[in-house]
């Protein structure tokens, strides 16, 4: 007669509960990829940037630096520097705000684009993102309405995402068959499509068509996988199939599915547990021991490994090896107690803030964003507890928010420092302005632009007269003027001695010299007139520039103090906003840190509760084994006593 263990159904129930949780987490991650909050990709071809500042926004965007990208874009929009990409820029901004979870702001942007009658490609993208926002907010009918309004102008890269969104909306509305139809249209080779196929299987099963769902999952579970992500998804599909088969009392099928799961997979522990249960269902406890013994050696922080610690003695008991069963139960109880103490230590470390601080220290980032992931685990007592905590989607999202708040706090601190610098700069400019103004005014007073203009006009009149009169002498250069003067002196002297015949040769030489000089002046006349006119034009331009500078200076003297005042007012207005925002962010950071720690502690507390339940059941099983042994001894003693009495009888 076999001992019936009351813990068996309880074990199995937990087995399925944990499996359900794993499946749920798997689907969550899968859909997380499909519906990730990656911001709207710009639709315009990459190399048609018609505003360099829009290109600058893209430069940051393509590096996933969304905070820098969206703030510089808004700055450029303020200065109207992205006019050629106005609608695209709005789509981009809406997408980035959406990626930060700012649904209301993003929704307003997309709605405005539609209202203003944007071109069809922009309008389709706006409807697409509106559908996404509405779906995320839980407005399913409105989301369906928005997605139905999309025409045929979406860029190809959004085509798949649109189908996935459509499927998710339909699934959320309970239309699983419709969802399956939408997902069937997705190309099976892309990463998103792989997850879609997984979801398609789940959708079919949920719609009541388990065979079709199983067929899809089975196809996924058999497919070749070229990367770890895909292999992990394949393992998850096989685990799902295996547990579905177990629940339908098809242990042989379950074994076949679970055998496909890799031993070192993330899902291996669940598979090993299920594999053992399949053997147990086939009344082959010796076969169940193989996976369970392997699993029992693994880290007890995993719930499946924890459960294996009591599944193994259960199998021994089923085989009738009660001594080994008892020993294993006692080992399990000791291990559970040890693990319980370790969990307490981990909880204490988390409560002290060590986990969050160490995570931040080891995973620095330079931007606020949703696509950041924990890469490096901190050093903590019992680090094995962290892996299960960090793997939780809820923890990761909460931690990302905490990290974002720290980024914002640093950003605001930087701006506060900068504002102080701006104020100093403004004060220095005011001071420099006050010091230089008298000097500039004096210099300005020394230069009489009106007098210069009058002088230029006088010269221009002389040039005009000389030109009209063809007066070469008017354009003589300094040397020629000197020669003319000396010649005039000579001629005057000769004229005073007109009767002297000996001076006749000199008179002739003077006449010749005067002729040569007149000839030269006549020859140079056209070029000199040209040069003079050109110089007059240049002088006019310079005088005009001087007048402009003079006017600008006068304007600056009037405007600059007002400009300084405006800047001072803006700085004075922004500083209090920072002063309000900084403590607000700090308070939220503290709250969020507590929330992050609460999530981590809750996960470990749950593990402690599991431990308590398993411990109780193990102790109960030990008691049963002792009872059985006691009952066996009593029965043996009774039999022996009866035999003795019979022997004593005559």
């Amino acid at each position, binding site marked *: 007669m076999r001992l019936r263990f009351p813990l068996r159904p309880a074990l199995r129930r937990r087995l*399925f509960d944990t499996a359900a949780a794993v499946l749920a987490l798997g689907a969550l991650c899968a859909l997380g990829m499909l519906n990730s909050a990656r911001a709207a990709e710009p639709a315009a071809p990459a190399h048609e940037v018609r505003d360099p500042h829009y290109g600058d926004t893209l*430069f940051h965007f393509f590096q996933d630096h969304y905070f820098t990208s969206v703030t510089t874009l808004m700055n450029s929009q303020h200065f109207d520097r992205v006019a050629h990409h106005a609608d695209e820029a709005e789509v981009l901004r809406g997408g980035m705000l959406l990626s930060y979870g700012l649904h209301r702001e993003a929704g307003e942007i997309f709605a405005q684009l539609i209202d203003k009658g944007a071109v069809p490609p922009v309008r389709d993208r706006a409807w697409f993102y509106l559908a996404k926002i509405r779906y*995320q907010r*839980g407005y399913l009918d409105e989301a369906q309405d928005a997605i139905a309004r999309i025409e045929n102008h979406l860029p190809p890269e959004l085509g798949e995402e649109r189908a996935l969104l459509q499927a998710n909306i339909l699934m959320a509305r309970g239309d699983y068959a419709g969802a399956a139809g939408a997902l069937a249209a997705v190309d099976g080779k892309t990463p998103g499509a792989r997850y879609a196929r997984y979801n398609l299987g789940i959708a079919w099963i949920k719609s009541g068509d388990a065979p079709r769902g199983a067929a899809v999952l089975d196809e996924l579970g058999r497919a070749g996988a070229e990367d770890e992500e895909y292999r992990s998804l394949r393992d998850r599909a096989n685990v799902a199939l295996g547990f579905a088969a177990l629940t339908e009392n098809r242990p042989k099928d379950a074994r076949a599915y679970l055998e496909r799961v890799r031993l070192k997979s993330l899902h291996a522990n669940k598979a090993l547990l299920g594999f053992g249960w399949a053997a147990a269902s086939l009344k082959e406890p010796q076969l169940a021991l193989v996976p369970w013994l392997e699993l029992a050696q693994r880290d007890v922080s995993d719930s499946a490994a924890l459960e294996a610690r009591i599944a193994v003695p259960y199998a021994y008991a089923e085989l009738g090896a009660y001594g080994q069963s008892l020993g294993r139960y006692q080992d399990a109880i000791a291990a559970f107690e040890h693990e319980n103490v370790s969990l307490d230590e981990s909880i204490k470390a988390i409560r002290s803030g060590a986990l969050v601080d160490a995570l931040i220290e080891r995973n620095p980032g330079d931007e606020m964003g949703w696509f950041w992931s924990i890469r490096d685990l901190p050093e903590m007592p019992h680090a094995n507890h962290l892996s299960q905590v960090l793997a939780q989607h809820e923890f990761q999202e909460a931690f990302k928010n905490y990290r974002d708040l720290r980024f914002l706090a640093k950003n605001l601190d930087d701006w506060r420092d900068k504002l102080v610098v701006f104020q100093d700069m403004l004060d220095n400019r005011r001071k420099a302005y006050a010091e230089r103004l008298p000097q500039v005014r004096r210099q300005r007073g020394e230069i009489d632009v009106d007098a210069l203009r009058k002088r230029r006009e006088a010269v221009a009149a002389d040039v005009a007269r000389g030109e009209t009169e063809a007066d070469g002498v008017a354009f003589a250069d300094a040397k020629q003027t000197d020669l003319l003067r000396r010649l005039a002196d000579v001629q005057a002297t000769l004229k005073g001695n007109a009767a002297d015949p000996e001076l006749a040769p000199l008179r002739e030489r003077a006449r010749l010299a005067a002729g040569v000089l007149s000839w030269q002046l006549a020859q140079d006349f056209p070029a000199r007139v040209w040069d003079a006119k050109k110089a007059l034009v240049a002088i006019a331009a310079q005088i005009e520039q001087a007048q402009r500078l003079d006017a600008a200076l006068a304007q600056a003297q009037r405007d600059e103090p007002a400009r300084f005042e405006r*800047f001072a007012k803006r700085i004075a207005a922004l500083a209090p906003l920072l002063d309000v925002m900084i403590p607000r962010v700090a308070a939220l950071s503290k709250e969020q840190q507590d929330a992050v720690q609460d999530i981590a502690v809750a996960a470990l507390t749950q593990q402690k509760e599991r431990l308590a339940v398993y411990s109780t059941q193990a102790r109960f099983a030990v008691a049963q084994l002792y009872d059985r042994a006691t009952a066996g001894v009593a029965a043996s003693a009774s039999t022996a006593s009866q035999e003795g009495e019979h022997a004593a009888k005559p």
Partner: protein
Amino acid sequence: MSFPLLLQCRLALIAAALLAAGALLPPQARAADAAAPSSAASAPMTAATLDGRIQDVKGDVIKLNRDLLVLEEELLFPANTQVALFVSMDVGKMFELDSVQIRLDDKMVSSYLYTPAEVAALHRGGVQRIYLGNLRTGEHELVAFFTGKGPHERDYKRGATVKFDKGSDPKYIELRIKDAMGKLQPEFDVKVWQ
């Protein structure tokens, strides 16, 4: 397997399916839905959730950053003296960009070493604003040196130069790296935006 056990298994499957249904919501939706109103009446209460308040503060900080950036630019780089230099890359198969050095009026204003992520962003159509500064009105000269790997993995260094007039409006100058497919060589030119 006994009947009660089978029933339990089925219940477990239903539980699994229900959990999976919950998981069908995207991650950010779960976070957002915590703050999202399921009806108008519940909006004020849900808006006060921690997650909702964090989203609000993110939005407020983004707007504040915009105002501060505008102030910074108007104060430090007023339009009448502002000059902005950009770097872009068209295709970029002929040239693997490592660094850019820029001299303005014979004065080094930027020496930039690129990360692979930045080069990838340029390849995808991003345009990097590499320098923002101030210049007086009048004629200026810009000289840029591009360093990297050219065809056949050879070290490659080329320059591009331009003389331009700075007026009273902001000046935007784009340094462009292009592929000259005919020559199978990279080309470097300068575009002065009007």
